[in-house]
């Protein structure tokens, strides 16, 4: 056995920038929160309505911002129309470019249908809110539930297309063994659901809803998604442990050769286990102690968002630093400009702006599965009962 030193090799820059992480994060939040909104808004389960209202807000805002991040990751963003002029059915990215706009339209129409009765009820409101309500509600005719079911089912179907293409697009890349595994797409979905449940928990707190129903439902979803993620990660590991090449072998090599990868693996594992343990702890407390503990569930929501974002950062950014046909790892420092920190902060800023604009002008708290203005209870903006909220002063409405 000889030992070798690499004397000379170029340093290869990463090709996908943090914009890609932002897109994958936003679109995962989008499709997962759509499924959290679906029980009430598509399948008519009334107990899920408080969750659905928050999830729909999360879904629409992330769906609007995600394509912006995706466009920004192109080095020639103004050539985006080439996707449609020269579509290549051989490419997963091209398939995605066809699914994404349809999905975007589906989500916008679904949100509009869900908010329309409330918009109709607000047509007499003073100022811009009233103007927007009059302009957006498009007449007094009631919104048929059947139409919502139809649009909802169509959008849910398109969302599975998004799940499939975002996962497959990365998983087919043989050149990066860490990506090239069938377990990557389901892991994207599982961590996406964890993050979306976390986002609903955080919105439940900052929007002042503080519904214990929402917290209980989201903690259960998170528990299930954590279990699925653990199963997927375990299967990935066991599936590859025999192989000398492939995803698991590449991961073991990285963990063996790099202190950064060791700490990343440790951090990821610990955070996942801690999140699962904390969710299980909250759900198994006696009913009397729950309200005090549930008031802190939003912290777990932040941890869940961290898990969803970090998984995408590690997969999309860190894996690109693993050299492909030279030794070791390429250095990557996040630049300050638009392809780095400014892009990350900017995406979140745009998202915050979208949430705030909707909160200002759209009565999203009264979203419902169809109906007309008459179905909106007057002078009671919050649909949930006071007994349902956790302790603490309610936030602004």
């Amino acid at each position, binding site marked *: 056995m*000889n030992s070798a030193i690499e004397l000379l090799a170029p*340093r290869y820059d990463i090709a996908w920038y943090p914009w890609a992480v932002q897109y994958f994060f936003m679109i995962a939040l989008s499709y997962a929160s759509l499924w959290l909104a679906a029980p009430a808004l598509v399948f008519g389960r009334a107990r899920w309505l408080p969750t659905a209202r928050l999830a729909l807000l999360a879904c629409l805002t992330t769906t609007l911002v995600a394509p912006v991040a995706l466009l920004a990751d192109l080095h020639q963003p103004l050539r985006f129309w080439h996707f449609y002029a020269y579509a290549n059915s051989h490419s997963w*990215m091209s398939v995605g470019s066809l699914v994404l706009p349809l999905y975007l339209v589906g989500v916008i129409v679904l949100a509009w249908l869900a908010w329309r009765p409330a918009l109709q009820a607000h047509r007499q409101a003073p100022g811009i809110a009233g103007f927007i309500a009059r302009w957006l509600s498009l007449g007094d005719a009631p919104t048929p539930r059947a139409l919502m079911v139809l649009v909802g089912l169509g959008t849910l179907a398109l969302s599975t297309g998004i799940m499939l293409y975002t996962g497959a697009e990365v998983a087919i890349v043989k050149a990066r063994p860490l990506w090239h595994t069938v377990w990557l797409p389901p892991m994207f979905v599982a961590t996406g659901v964890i993050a979306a449940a976390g986002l609903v928990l955080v919105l439940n707190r900052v929007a002042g809803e503080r519904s214990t129903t929402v917290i209980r439902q989201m903690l259960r979803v998170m528990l299930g998604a954590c279990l699925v993620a653990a199963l997927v990660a375990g299967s990935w590991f*066991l599936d590859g442990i*025999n192989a000398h090449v492939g995803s698991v072998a590449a991961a073991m090599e990285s963990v063996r050769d790099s202190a950064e990868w060791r700490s990343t693996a440790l951090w990821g594992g610990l955070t996942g286990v801690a999140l699962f343990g904390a969710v299980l702890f909250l759900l198994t407390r006696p009913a009397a102690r729950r309200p005090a503990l549930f008031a802190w569930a939003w912290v777990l929501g932040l941890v869940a968002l961290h898990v969803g974002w970090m998984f995408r950062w590690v997969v999309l950014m860190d894996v690109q630093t693993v050299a492909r046909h030279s030794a070791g790892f390429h250095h990557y420092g996040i630049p300050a400009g638009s392809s780095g920190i400014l892009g990350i902060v900017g995406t979140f800023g745009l998202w915050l702006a979208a949430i705030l604009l909707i909160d200002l002008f759209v009565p999203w708290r009264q979203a419902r599965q169809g109906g007309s203005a008459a179905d909106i209870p007057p002078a009671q903006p919050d649909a949930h009962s006071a007994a349902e909220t956790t302790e603490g002063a309610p936030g602004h409405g």
Partner: protein
Amino acid sequence: MDPIRRSLLGQLARLSAGAAMVPLSSVASAGINQQPPRREGDPSKRYGMLIDLRQCIGCQACTVSCHIENAAPLGSFRTTVSQYEVEHQETGEVATFMLPRLCNHCENPACVPVCPVEATYQRQDGIVVVDSDRCVGCAYCVNACPYDARFINERTQTADKCTFCAHRLEAGLLPACVESCVGGARIIGDMRDPQSQISRMIAEHRDELMVLQPEKNTLPQVFYLGMDERFVTRPDAEPVALDVLDPHGKEMGYEFRH
């Protein structure tokens, strides 16, 4: 872990619920990710390259001449020569190994089917090129190439790569790297012509030729003669270039780890 236990764990994994996804993934990689039809170029030719490593002295004349011919931005390379110091652990004898690298113009290129706008395509003579007027700069091909042969050109903001100097071949000239190689290590030619030098050398050295990362099933068409099989896949070597940064994080130079 002993092999029996490892194989048992592997079996367990296959029994788990996710095994249902395996056929799904083969549909995905076979159905959508297939090669689009080739276009342009002379269908009667198939260009390939043979690199005789016994003749390579690592002078980087190819790197420099390619850089000048194709005006690649500083720090990005269409071709370059990686160099390794290999030490025999028993005798302590030290030798330098050179690995010239460029686009392999694969028979089954991983970079072509991923392109969402068919800006990168394979010509009928086997040369893989990029239409930089159509390229959207999504960099999917850069990630899809196992050989680091592609990069985003910072000036054009589109994908860039070795074209075997197709513009020179069409004018009856040799590619810049071949023209400048002092040892005559790089041989390019039409592999469909049995009388070409590359065809004769391939016939003569058939059993000794190696390609990079054959397990990726890309069928590279750059063949190495005098290759050390440890460099066929990602070399198990100590990386050299640790950036030395000044207090402001600006790069000052490189240093060796030991």
